[in-house]
């Protein structure tokens, strides 16, 4: 079973990713408030939670405006995810955005940030208002972020595709260098297999990204440096295949394809690294968006994301070796036929 352990490892890791990645619940959060603006005076707000446990113990509910808290006068729990709170909003809140908070021992603090537009501002209120508990909840869950919600799980099925693609393209790049050094057709075959397989993962990355973008940004395709980079990458490798198709002599084909691959790979890497830093992007870590490390601050995501990347990359390399071995057999058969 020599040489099999990493294939098994990829399967085990991906199994872990599917099970834990899909089965871990999202952390509780507030997702919806029945009002979108508040004014001084009594108000009643319905709040919808997600994966919350309001019925276990009536939660504390409060409004927070620029550090000043207004606790609910009455809280009426309808179900685990639905409650109604009545507030006496004092005049003179400082900020025009007010957040809605709730806390109970099971769920910890949950918040709907900037839930209400606030009318009749002033500067009279001093201090922090009423006191509330902020004890954090314990337990393993993924962060529940606005807009992303459950789709945060796609992190394990979309992002690793690009990692895998880059690994395979790097293999192709190294093999192309070897083609030029040694003039060996075996290396050319490896480069071609790596490119072929990397295009599978590029396609998967584009499709999954497109589905995810539709659900979060509302469009199948947005003009984003990451997407432009991906499109350019796919075009370059399509051109690589066309170049190969147009040269009949195998040795010349190997050399020309290797030269193009090296040229394209280096320029593409520079492009992928530099351009997103220069322009705004919807992707985390670019432009005005929070960095990926901030997403991963939650160690729960990291505990699945790293195995996911490793698992997918190993699976990609496995696919590459299968492709390569088939190509090798085909070329042996072709040689035998020619003889």
């Amino acid at each position, binding site marked *: 079973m020599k040489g099999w352990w990493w294939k098994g490892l990829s399967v085990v890791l991906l199994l872990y990713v599917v099970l834990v990645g*899909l089965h871990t619940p*999202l952390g509780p959060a507030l997702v919806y408030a029945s009002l979108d603006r508040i004014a001084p005076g009594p108000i009643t707000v319905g709040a*919808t939670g997600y994966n919350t446990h309001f019925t276990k113990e009536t939660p504390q509910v409060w409004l927070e405006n620029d550090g000043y808290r207004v606790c609910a006068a009455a809280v009426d729990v309808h179900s685990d*995810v639905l409650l109604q709170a009545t507030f006496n909003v004092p005049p003179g809140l400082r900020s025009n955005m007010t957040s809605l908070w709730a806390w109970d021992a099971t769920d910890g603090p949950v918040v709907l940030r900037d839930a209400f537009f606030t009318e009749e501002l002033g500067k009279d209120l001093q201090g922090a208002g009423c006191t509330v508990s902020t004890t954090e909840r314990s337990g393993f869950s993924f962060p529940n972020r606005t807009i992303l919600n459950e789709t945060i799980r796609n992190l394990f099925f979309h992002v690793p595709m690009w990692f895998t693609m880059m690994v395979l393209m790097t293999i192709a790049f190294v093999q192309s260098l070897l083609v030029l050094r040694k003039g060996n057709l075996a290396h050319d075959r490896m480069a071609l297999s790596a490119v072929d397989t990397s295009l*599978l993962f590029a*396609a998967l990355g584009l499709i999954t990204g497109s*589905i995810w973008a539709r659900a979060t940004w509302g469009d199948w395709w947005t003009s984003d440096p990451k997407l432009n980079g991906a499109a350019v990458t796919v075009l370059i490798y399509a051109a690589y295949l066309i170049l190969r198709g147009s040269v009949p002599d195998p040795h010349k084909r190997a050399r020309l394809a290797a030269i193009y691959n090296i040229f394209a790979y280096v320029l593409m890497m520079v492009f992928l690294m530099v351009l997103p830093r220069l322009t705004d992007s919807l992707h985390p870590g670019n432009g005005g968006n929070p960095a990926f490390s901030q997403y991963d601050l939650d160690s729960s995501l990291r505990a699945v994301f790293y195995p996911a990347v490793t698992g997918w990359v190993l699976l990609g390399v496995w696919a590459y070796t299968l492709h390569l071995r088939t190509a090798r057999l085909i070329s042996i058969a072709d040689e035998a*036929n020619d003889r």
Partner: protein
Amino acid sequence: MKLTIVKPLMAVMALLAWPVSTFAASEAPGWLQERMFASGKINTVVMVVGAVLIGIAIWMFALDRRIGKLEKNAKDKK
């Protein structure tokens, strides 16, 4: 041929449906569950995982065909 595909397909679908059924179902009223489902967007995750599996399956079929040709070639030789 058809029968051999059905079982793994059902297993995959069950695997996909499992997380949906475990946390989408709560005691919430129907309209609310619908809302939650919309805001939870678990369907997107199912679609993404499904797309990945379909993509890999298509790739496997392509490889299958290549190997099939090889086999035919070897058989013709004999």
